[in-house]
């Protein structure tokens, strides 16, 4: 069996009967079993095989309706903060061990409706709080390019699984870079959609004004395909924006086909490079980034520089907002309705305090406590409200930039994947790693990380950023770059 399958080609092969979904799933389950990367928290072998057999049967019986399903028989890994009916969902936290959701997240429902095979739930930083997957209660995931290094985070399990061929497609979530960071570190594609494009119903909330679910894949086309499937309108998410464009794959695929024959057509694209996103980046990463920008120029892009004056404040504002929202969102974990409960009950407050003390990991505690502080009387104006106002400045910088440019380009991460254990002891040094990814979440714009070569033998990511709900232009630019880069 092939080492790697691209998702959109695989659907065709399954539909045509050339590849059996069951055989593929068996092969992937075996790879997962043999692997020492720790990509998965839960593997759903039996349910996955059953779904795969159902897909194969539909092909044999020429079931017209089933054959139209866009992910028929295609294996997908789902990050463990996304609710899956009947499958344990832990957010990589002790406090949720054994929790089995009685319902599916809207994106999971959408995957099933389109015939996808859910392979399992991937490892992550506890409650998405981290950039290395080391804060997981289930131990860290390792980077497939160098097992002594982190895969990035928080969707590290999803990115490592895609990079190592332990799944075909994966879902991650991105609050401040949690899709793009591991995609960059693992050398795969990761897309954070515009805030409000994908339903968050069933996504276990960390910082709900910032986060989106999105695809982690081997190629831009696969990311578009998976985005099309999950970006359904959903009355259950009141923060979702209705009536915007939600389908991108077909157009992109037609484009890719013609570019394959005739070479990538000249792009009529104005690309802005925000200066502050390149300052302070490691030399090797910077070199790879400018080489990528050169390639965009060769493709016809008109490249210019721009300054983001809010950049000085963005990272601090992001962490204040994320921690504040977390302190409120995570108040629900009390062991009453689900999750960890201690044998002996004491009085009301002490019971909860003990459960939460034992159930949450260190980083989660740190963030809840800081969030509680930022929201407390006397500090609200200095921290939380100030951060919300800085958020407006960041939005303004993006608005200004998009008057001059169609797409912005930056390095995704300021450095390549570092060693396990290297930064985890100093939380602030880890927060600084998110400097280039968090402004995107503050503004709610879409952003994609695509591989752009190596530095010291490790993958570097190019981050492209688009206008609100202009995934079409963003994906087109990413596809052109990807095709030109591979030539």
């Amino acid at each position, binding site marked *: 069996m092939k080492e790697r399958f691209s998702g959109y080609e695989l659907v065709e092969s399954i539909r045509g009967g050339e590849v059996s979904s069951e055989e593929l799933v068996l092969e992937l389950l075996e790879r997962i079993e043999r692997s020492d990367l720790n990509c998965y928290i839960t593997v759903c072998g039996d349910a996955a095989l059953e779904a795969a057999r159902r897909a194969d049967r539909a092909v044999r019986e020429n079931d017209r309706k089933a054959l139209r399903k866009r992910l028929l028989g295609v294996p997908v890994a789902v990050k463990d903060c996304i609710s899956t009916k009947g499958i344990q969902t832990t957010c990589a936290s002790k406090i949720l061990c054994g929790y089995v959701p009685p319902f599916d997240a809207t994106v999971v429902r959408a995957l099933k409706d389109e015939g996808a095979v859910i392979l399992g739930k991937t490892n992550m930083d506890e409650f998405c709080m981290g950039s290395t997957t080391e804060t997981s209660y289930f131990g860290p995931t390792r980077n497939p390019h160098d097992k002594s290094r982190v895969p990035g985070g928080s969707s590290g399990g999803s990115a490592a699984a895609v990079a190592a061929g332990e799944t075909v497609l994966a879902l991650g979530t991105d609050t401040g870079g949690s899709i793009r960071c591991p995609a960059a570190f693992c050398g795969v594609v990761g897309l954070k959609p515009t805030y409000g494009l994908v339903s968050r119903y069933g996504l276990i909330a960390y910082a709900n004004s910032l986060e989106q679910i999105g695809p982690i894949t081997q190629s831009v086309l696969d990311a578009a395909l998976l985005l099309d499937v999950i970006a359904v309108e959903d009355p259950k998410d009141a923060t979702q924006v209705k009536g915007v464009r939600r389908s991108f794959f077909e157009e992109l695929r037609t484009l890719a086909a013609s570019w394959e024959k005739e070479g990538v057509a000249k792009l009529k694209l104005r690309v802005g490079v925000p200066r502050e996103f390149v300052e302070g980046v490691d030399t090797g990463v910077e070199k790879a980034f400018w080489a990528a920008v050169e390639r965009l120029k060769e493709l016809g892009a008109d490249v210019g520089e721009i300054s983001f004056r809010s950049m000085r404040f963005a990272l*601090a504002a992001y962490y204040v907002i994320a921690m504040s929202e977390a302190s409120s969102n995570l*108040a629900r974990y009390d062991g009453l*309705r689900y999750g960890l409960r201690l044998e002996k009950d004491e009085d009301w407050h002490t019971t909860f305090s003990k459960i939460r003390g034992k159930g949450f990991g*260190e980083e989660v505690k740190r963030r809840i*406590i800081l969030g509680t*502080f930022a929201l407390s009387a006397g500090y609200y104006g200095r921290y939380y409200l100030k951060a919300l106002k800085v958020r407006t400045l960041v939005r303004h910088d993006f608005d200004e930039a998009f008057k001059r440019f169609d797409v912005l380009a930056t390095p995704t991460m300021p450095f390549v994947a570092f060693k396990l254990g290297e930064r985890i002891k100093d939380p602030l040094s880890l927060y600084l790693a998110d400097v280039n990814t968090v402004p995107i979440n503050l503004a709610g714009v879409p952003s994609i990380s695509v591989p752009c070569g190596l530095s010291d033998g490790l993958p570097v990511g190019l981050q492209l950023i688009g206008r609100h709900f202009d995934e079409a232009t963003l994906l087109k630019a990413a596809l052109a770059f990807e095709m030109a880069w591979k030539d």
Partner: protein
Amino acid sequence: MRKEEIEHLSWLARIELTEEEKEKFEKQLGSILEFFSVLDDADVEDVEPTHHVIGITNVFRDDEVEESLPQEAVLRNAPKREDGYFKGPRIL
């Protein structure tokens, strides 16, 4: 951040900390707050705060009764329950 402040905040957040954690947090939270103090320099006097990036407000739907989860499905994950209720610790 002083130890008493950390104890107060962890009580507000209902998270019991070990002595070891308190000591560690004393140092770490202080340096993180120092990092946050860059916000003091932001000139945002006349700037409106952003709550939803696209600016959606007041999303309404019809008040229609829909099917909800059966009681057993809702209670299944509860570590302690009694007669179809979640069982909490005593209040008084």
